[in-house]
């Protein structure tokens, strides 16, 4: 199961757009009036944060599809797991880039701001989910357990978000997802397009990573299945010929 031509093209496109993003972000766009060069971090920070939500969205969707009887298939659980893993990487990047940006702009590495805090909780929530995924057991039981855990974590997100927001708010208002500003951006033209390019290239990267991770998960799954079958077949053959001298004798 090699990666297909489409996936390779996707990978190349991701690398190319990231290179273009680097040029746009570091050379072409002007420094910000208030934030100076720190604004350049936004071209990565906002896209990775967007990808983080997309990845966890895929995890939730995969888990629902697995739990729904009509679409029950282990591949959905594998997809959910792959996406969660990629999502955790993007969450880590979001926290790191946000922290560096905070140091230069707010003067501190970390503040207990609403979005920072809820992102940190999100990070730990899905680290827990990944830890749960690593626990062995019967594949179907495991898939069901994983899916339920993913959904239980996902329904918590709005509550975490809302409660932390009430607790304290210092973060900038979202400047892209607002309907009005989406159509009439109040940030500088080239800056706006660089953020957009950032989002597109990170989404490309996300899809490429996701496809590769999913492929790997399927291979692992197959290895586990076939490995077990082969082990059983070997032991049977040993029992028949009576030549069971290997270290595995008597295991099965």
């Amino acid at each position, binding site marked *: 199961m090699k990666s297909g031509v489409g996936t390779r093209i996707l990978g190349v496109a991701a690398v190319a757009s990231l290179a273009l993003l680097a040029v746009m972000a570091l050379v072409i766009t002007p420094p910000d009036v208030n934030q100076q060069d720190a604004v350049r971090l936004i071209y990565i920070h906002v896209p990775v944060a967007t990808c983080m939500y997309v990845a966890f969205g895929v995890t939730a969707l995969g888990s629902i599809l697995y739990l729904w009887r009509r679409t029950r298939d282990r591949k959905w659980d594998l997809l959910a797991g792959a996406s969660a893993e990629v999502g955790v990487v993007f969450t880590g990047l979001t926290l790191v880039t946000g922290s560096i940006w905070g140091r230069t702009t707010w003067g501190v590495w970390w503040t207990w701001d609403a979005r920072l805090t809820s992102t940190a909780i999100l990070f730990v929530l899905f680290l827990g989910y990944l830890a*749960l995924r690593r626990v062995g057991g019967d594949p179907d*039981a495991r898939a069901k357990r994983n899916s*339920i855990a993913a959904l239980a974590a996902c329904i918590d997100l709005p509550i975490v978000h809302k409660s*932390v927001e*009430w607790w304290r708010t210092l973060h900038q208002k979202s400047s892209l997802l607002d309907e009005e500003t989406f159509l009439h951006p109040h940030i500088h033209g080239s800056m706006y397009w660089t953020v957009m390019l950032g989002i597109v290239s990170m989404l490309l990267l996300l899809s490429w990573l996701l496809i590769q991770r999913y492929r790997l998960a399927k291979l692992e799954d197959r290895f586990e299945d076939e490995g077990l079958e082969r082990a059983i077949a070997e032991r049977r053959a040993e029992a028949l010929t009576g030549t069971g001298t290997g270290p595995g004798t008597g295991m099965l």
Partner: protein
Amino acid sequence: MWRDAAVMAGKDLRIEVRSRVATNQVAPFAFLVLILFAFALDPDRGVLGTAAAGLFWVAVLFCALLAIQRAFAVEASDGARDNLRMSGLDPAGMFLGKASAIAAELALLEIILGAGVVILYNRSLHGPVLLVVTCVLATIGLAAAGTLYGALAAGLRVRETLLPLLLLPVVAPVLLAATRASEAALGGSPGDGWPWVRVLGVFAVIYVAFGVVAFGPLLEESS
């Protein structure tokens, strides 16, 4: 469903009354945590009194972890889990029963801890209505989420270390909301606390509903 819940809760509470693990181990642990907080935060500087609400809820969380581990440990031995599965009890009822038993234990612990805070941290209680409502809703939320994750982690070899990692981030909003509401109550401005009570209410409703739906499949599949 309700009858099954009562059977289940009765069974769990009877085990606790007879084995006295909650009273002999969890309650002293709660008391110990209060003393440890006093060591960590110098009582003379007044930090202890100001942070009392937060410390109280952190202590409750720790005790909740123990209570949940315990509630599922009793099902682990002698194939009790299989018997439970074959008992014909409604899974939703089982969930509600187990959650109510945990909630009852937690409520008892909260009373002990509350008394501890009043005596050891020198706080007086105000806004009793807000405090009681906060405790009740937070306890229901903790018990429901705890039962759900307890069932999820039960039977796994790494459950002792996995459960805190899974459960604590999920109940973060409960800690936050319960602390703010209790602070408002203790600080004598109960009006500030009621929005937080809503958060606790929403959390409790969502996790009770999710647990009722998800407990069946969880029990069925995990071994």
